[in-house]
């Protein structure tokens, strides 16, 4: 089989020896079948025995070999080395982000597990079902939702590449929220939607929809979609958040004019905190750029409003 020599640039860090991480370059002959994990094993066996990384199943099931490959978190065992080399001209291998570095490509995942644990990631059994002579059936429809979320292998790729988590340590991250949604949608769980009420203070509204968690998930769990679904469920929360005000204001605006009214959206979401941007609003007004709070409805607005009535019916927000 045809081989090519590829340059692997790998982040190295030995805490007993190095003050800070550095990069080491290795040349590896690879063929089309080899994964990044195969290449790392090759380096470890033939060039640098001290190179440290986690791995186990080699089949994309255990989630151990998650690391940054050419800047994005992936499973090394599921990533073809030649594809990466062709795309970027070489393969840059680094430890996952948003977690502290222990050694070489190994990070401290306790931070990730702590966040997952915050969401009570287990089934809280509904004791009224105990002793029932009937099976506790889960319908196909219910299984389609929670089953997909249960595919998560807790590799940490989504947590690693979550842009919000970099700056907001109160945000429990995509995997944790996806796991919560998995139990919220499980009919055997006693907590059900009650779980969502606790989320408001846990960063439910910190997700920016950057879609990195969707793109980097090796199991196609799509945590961002789970987060959006949790937000929909949070509308019955006793503790309305600014995020809910934002959604409500947005929905009202589209119903009123068919379009987003930036001025009213801003005022209804920010409320008294609008004052913090008073200087900016003044400058925008002087530049003729401050959006008007009066927006003329689009032609045929009645079509939009009748769809609102049809779909939301009595539950209009």
């Amino acid at each position, binding site marked *: 089989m045809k081989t090519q020599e590829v340059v692997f640039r790998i982040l190295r860090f030995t805490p007993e020896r190095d003050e800070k991480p550095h990069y080491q370059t290795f040349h590896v002959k690879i063929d089309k079948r080899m994964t990044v994990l195969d290449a790392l094993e090759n380096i470890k066996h033939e060039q640098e025995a001290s190179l440290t990384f986690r791995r186990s199943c080699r089949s994309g099931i255990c989630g151990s070999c998650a690391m940054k490959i050419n800047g994005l978190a992936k499973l090394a065992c599921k990533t073809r080395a030649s594809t990466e080399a062709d795309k970027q001209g070489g393969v840059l291998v680094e430890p996952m982000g948003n977690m502290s570095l222990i050694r070489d490509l190994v990070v401290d995942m306790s931070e990730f597990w702590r966040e997952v644990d915050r969401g009570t990631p287990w089934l809280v059994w509904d004791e009224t079902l105990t002793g029932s002579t009937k099976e506790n059936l889960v319908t196909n429809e219910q299984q389609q939702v929670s089953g997909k979320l249960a595919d998560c292998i807790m590799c940490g790729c989504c947590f690693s590449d979550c842009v919000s988590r970099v700056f907001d340590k109160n945000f429990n991250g995509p995997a944790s929220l996806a796991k919560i949604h998995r139990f919220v949608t499980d009919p055997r769980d006693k907590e059900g939607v009650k779980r969502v009420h606790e989320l408001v203070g846990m960063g439910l509204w910190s997700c920016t929809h950057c*879609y990195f968690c969707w793109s980097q998930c090796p199991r196609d769990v799509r945590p961002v979609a789970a987060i959006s679904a949790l937000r929909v469920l949070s509308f019955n929360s006793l503790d309305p958040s600014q995020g809910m005000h934002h959604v409500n204001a947005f929905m009202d605006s589209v119903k009123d004019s068919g379009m987003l009214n930036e001025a009213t959206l801003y005022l209804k979401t920010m409320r008294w905190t609008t004052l913090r941007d008073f200087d900016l609003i003044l400058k925008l007004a002087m530049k003729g750029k401050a959006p008007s709070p009066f927006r003329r409805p689009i032609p045929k607005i009645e*079509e939009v409003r009748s769809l609102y009535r049809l779909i939301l019916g009595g539950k209009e927000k």
Partner: protein
Amino acid sequence: MKYAYYPGCVAKSGAPELYESTARVAEKLGIELVELTTASCCGAGVVNEGDPFLDLVLNARTFAIAENMGLDILTICSTCQGVMCQIKWQLDNDAGLLAKTNEALAKINVQYVGRVKIKHLLWALIEDYGLSKLEQQVVKPLKGLKVAPFYGCYILRPAEALQFENHEKPTSLEQLITVLGGEPVHYEGETKCCGFPILFVQRGTAFEMAATSLNNAQQKGADFMVTPCPLCHISLDTYQKKSAKKIQANINLPVMHLSQMVALALGVEPGKLGFSKHMVSMAKVLSVL
């Protein structure tokens, strides 16, 4: 080239300079834009969190309007592009959902078939107009200017729905900057989030996101940043001073809308492109041209 033009809410309100400069680009390149005046807001991913089905049906209505005109949709906002592509992708791959959507649309005598394509101006310039043809139209090349492309999120991810370029290593903005005579500058953060979606909810986090990317681009020597999204523009330009303060950095990086950059290179007078509406002055950039 003729499109059903969907400028989006922001270009029609808080970013009029984007609307104006797109009109100038279309005029110069002979692109006919038939505005979808009866279309509603795409929902920006927010209506989806109020009621996902309503969001779906409102967008399907927009698609149907364009289909009835026999035209594909052209957007100038990455957020509109991303939201609409995702919804179209869902509908085109789920016959049950499509039927349910059309059942709702039947109440207003509308039907979505699935013919329409949705293209951001960036994609249309590359796929439909052609970059080599565009290069021939450049009369005022961006020579001597280092340009930082800011893709953001919605025009790249999720790749399954957008299906235009490799989200891991996008090149569309780089290609465009190059044919317009500028020099693309790469920096950490060009495909990350600008922070806008949480600007009203988690302000500090949003500021740090925007400022970090701006700072990285500035440190790589960029003369200005360019974005295909007016919401990113709000984060990156309107709030630049406040976000820079948040990370205690001295940032002064002008940010152009994609249409403004193209229009400039096509020889449109800068005075017609609304740069005076920006918070960060474009004077230094314009003095180079």
